[in-house]
């Protein structure tokens, strides 16, 4: 676009004029406004707090509507107001749960630490299962006790132990117990005491 000298002056004059008017108080202020309500259109999922045994009801709010191409991510959690015990309340730990989910210390991949090593090595799930099953089988085959000194059938395996969780679901706990007992493990406990 060709700008003639005259046009140029006009533009400049207009610019100066408007800025002067602005200086005299004709500018429009940004409208005062509250923050956007951040939960609009987010997806709600009911859950239970994983900390103490009050087991407060939670409503988790996630980004994405669960469409195929949207990867859900939870960005806010608050108490479930319908829950008879917590009635929408959450304690300081519960109110901070979203930071637990997104903790930088969450583990992301199976890892292996060799004897004497100073570091973790990332491995695949298949390698991890293979390694663990092999270690178990070797130990079990070597140390399984079918009968005790008195000749009674005891079918126990005492050289590997299993410490179960305190916050895994009943379903996880059930299948864990089922598998552990099938191997004959007796050194078995959970976190009921601590």
């Amino acid at each position, binding site marked *: 676009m060709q700008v003639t000298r005259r046009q140029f002056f006009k533009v400049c004059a207009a610019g100066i004029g408007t*800025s002067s008017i*602005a*200086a*005299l*108080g*004709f*500018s429009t202020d940004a409208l005062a406004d509250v923050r956007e309500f951040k939960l609009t259109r987010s997806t709600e999922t009911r859950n239970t707090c994983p900390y103490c045994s009050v087991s407060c009801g939670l409503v988790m709010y996630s980004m994405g509507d669960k469409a195929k191409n949207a990867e859900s991510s939870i960005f806010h959690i608050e108490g479930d107001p319908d829950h008879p015990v917590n009635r929408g309340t959450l304690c300081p730990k519960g109110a901070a749960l979203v930071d637990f989910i997104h903790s930088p210390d969450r583990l992301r991949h199976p890892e292996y630490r060799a004897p004497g090593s100073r570091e973790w090595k990332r491995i695949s799930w298949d390698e991890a299962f293979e390694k663990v099953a092999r270690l178990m089988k070797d130990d079990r085959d070597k140390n399984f006790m079918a009968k005790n000194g008195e000749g009674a059938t005891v079918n126990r395996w005492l050289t590997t132990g299993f410490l179960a969780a305190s916050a895994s679901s009943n379903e996880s706990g059930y299948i864990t117990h089922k598998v552990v007992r099938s191997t004959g493990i007796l050194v078995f406990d959970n976190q009921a005491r601590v």
Partner: protein
Amino acid sequence: MKNDPKKLLRFTPMERANHWLTAIIFFLAALSGLSFFHPFFFPLTQLFGGGVWTRILHPFFGVAMLLSFGGMFFRFKQQNVITPADREWLRHVREMAGGDDRNMPEAGKFNGGQKLLFWLFAACMALLILSGIVIWRAYFSFLFPVEAVRVASVVHAAAAAVMIALIIFHIYAAIWTRESIDAMLYGRVRRAWARQHHPAWFRQMTGGEK
């Protein structure tokens, strides 16, 4: 001719530069400060790039003002020592304002009014700087108890208002007294002007000639 050597040298180039630097900074400080003084003036922030920039710049204008005004202060301090004649001058100031200078004692380089103004400026500046530091939120306010900040806010606003009033007076006096502005613009004044407004200084400069 503006620089007619027959005219009397009233202000050196450095003095003039210092004055006008101070004047410019004063306007920056005053306009930016006024924008926070009352909502009526808030649009002045547009001159400085908006409210946030105005808030950032204003205290630095104050610092610049301190340096520039400080220069003036030390330059002119000696010449502004108030003498008994100045006091006499000040007693007759009403007559002066009425345009009747018959009873006015002879003024030196600066008359009593100018000297008083000088010291009032200095006092206001001191108050503005001290209170300004206390209310400079970004760097200093957290060092002071909130009550001190509150007092400083009042002092700063009051000193600023007085300062602006004095400057208005100063400017008007310069306009009212014809040719005064030339003195500060070009440095030299006509001898007639000096004889009229600052007779004692005139004598001093001309070695008693007439």
